[in-house]
């Protein structure tokens, strides 16, 4: 499970690094043009750190390493937010040797709460929460409906994507885009986009592993 977690985190890291330009250009439109740069710097460091982690480091340990690395390398708003999310996820994952959908739900719930605690935002403020929270809810619902892990993740991805679209229709009231007022309309939120990208990468990774398909 440990090497599986490493590979999953690497997949997430890869997608962020690959989308550095996209995320930066989204941030240029309504922020300060650094979201991709920040996130890529962080996940490049994460890649190095998790590869170098002691073999056998458990899921919680790897999530904690990821969280700490993001906190100390990303900066900006997204660093503490995603960092806190992974730290909370690590805490929730403690003692878990493998992950079933219920375990993932618990971890995800903790991560989501971490973002809310740290950023004091709620849905509808044009932030990463607008992708993350509907995705989480769709996942929970799919799990309840006894969908497979990959199916549930697909549902979550779908919801996250809709969340991104939704961010185009609202005015930002949190983060740097809030300074724009109405001028933030029509633009999609960079953080919501990075959230979706991470989730999509995780989903593809699970599909490729034919995990719980």
């Amino acid at each position, binding site marked *: 499970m440990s090497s599986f977690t490493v590979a999953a985190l690497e997949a997430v890291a890869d997608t962020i690094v690959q989308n550095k330009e996209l995320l930066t250009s989204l941030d240029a439109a309504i922020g300060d043009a650094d979201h991709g*740069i920040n996130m890529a710097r962080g996940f490049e460091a994460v890649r190095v750190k998790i590869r170098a982690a002691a073999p056998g480091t458990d899921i919680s340990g790897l999530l904690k390493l990821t969280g700490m690395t993001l906190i100390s*390398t990303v900066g900006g708003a997204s660093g*503490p937010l995603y960092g806190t999310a992974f730290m909370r996820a690590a805490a929730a994952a403690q003692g878990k040797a493998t992950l079933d959908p219920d375990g993932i739900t618990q971890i995800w719930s903790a991560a989501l709460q971490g973002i809310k605690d*740290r950023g004091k935002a709620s849905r509808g403020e044009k932030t990463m929460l607008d992708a993350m929270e509907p995705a989480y809810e769709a996942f929970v619902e799919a799990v309840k409906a006894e969908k497979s892990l990959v199916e549930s993740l697909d549902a979550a991805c779908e919801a996250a994507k809709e969340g991104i679209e939704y961010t185009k229709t609202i005015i930002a009231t949190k983060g740097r885009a809030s300074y724009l007022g109405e001028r933030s309309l029509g633009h999609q939120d960079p953080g919501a986009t990075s959230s979706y990208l991470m989730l999509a990468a995780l989903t593809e990774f699970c599909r490729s592993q034919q995990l719980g398909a």
Partner: protein
Amino acid sequence: MKKVINAPEQVVEEMLQGIALAHPQYVRRVEGFDVIVRANAPVAGKVALVSGGGSGHEPSHGGFVGKGMLDGAVAGAVFTSPTPDQVYEAIKAVDGGKGVLLVIKNYTGDVMNFDMAAEMAEADGIKVAKVIVNDDVAVENSTWTTGRRGIAGTVFVHKIAGAKAETGADLEAVQQVAEKVIANVRSMGMALTPCTVPAAGKPGFTLAENEVEIGLGIHGEPGTHREELRSADETTAHLMEKILADLQLAAGDEVAVLVNGLGATPLMELYVVNRKVHQILGDAGMKIAKTLVGNYMTSLEMAGFSISLLKLDGETKELLFAAADTPAFVQV
């Protein structure tokens, strides 16, 4: 991108080395961290001040580390809030036992990263207090919950709270006077040209020839609107109107003025602006106790300027005039 750098990834590191080499009488680098502290830090028996933010605003904040102003400055990546571990190192390096005041500009990232650092330091038993500077009247406070941004007015907080700390005041008193400055300082800026973050390689936005952005943030965040370039006097009058509407000064009030260059604006132009600022304040019957003109809080090579007004009372005036000795601000 035309810059005198070696590589975008190295620019903050090399800048910090350059600062430490230039000003050993004032500051030193905290080994292994993007942190500049007073050469003699920690100063015992004094509340310490730590500020910081993304790099690219030089001389803010490393240039204001020294006697009578900051004890430590944390440098994030260009235009990106520093991470909590860096801020935490700064706090540890400067704490002289009387606690540390964090002077934070009101950006979501800065606030969260400094918050996390404060939690880490408090867990070590260090007393930490925070103030959040939000002087930019271009961004309305009411409508958006993030609130106003912190821009050049921050320099007045460094100066006055730093002077207070130098008197031996306790953390609460230093925090209080910082809050008083924040309550009484308002700023607004405008830009003629964008700037280029080295890692991005291209300008953050574009402006047509003859077009300017009014109310722009110090990271190139869009302002209130774009318009055709007007005369220096008209532009100055417009910014002053916004500032005065918010600060609500009365005739006879005493103020300090900061005409701040964003990086590429000749001092000549800043003085032309200052002339009009003085005319407007003079006509309204206000007294100007002190004027600063120059590059205090920049946005890399952006052309443009901001005006900050600070309403003074007896205490803040005295502290504003107190001695300071830092790389970028010396006063006898």
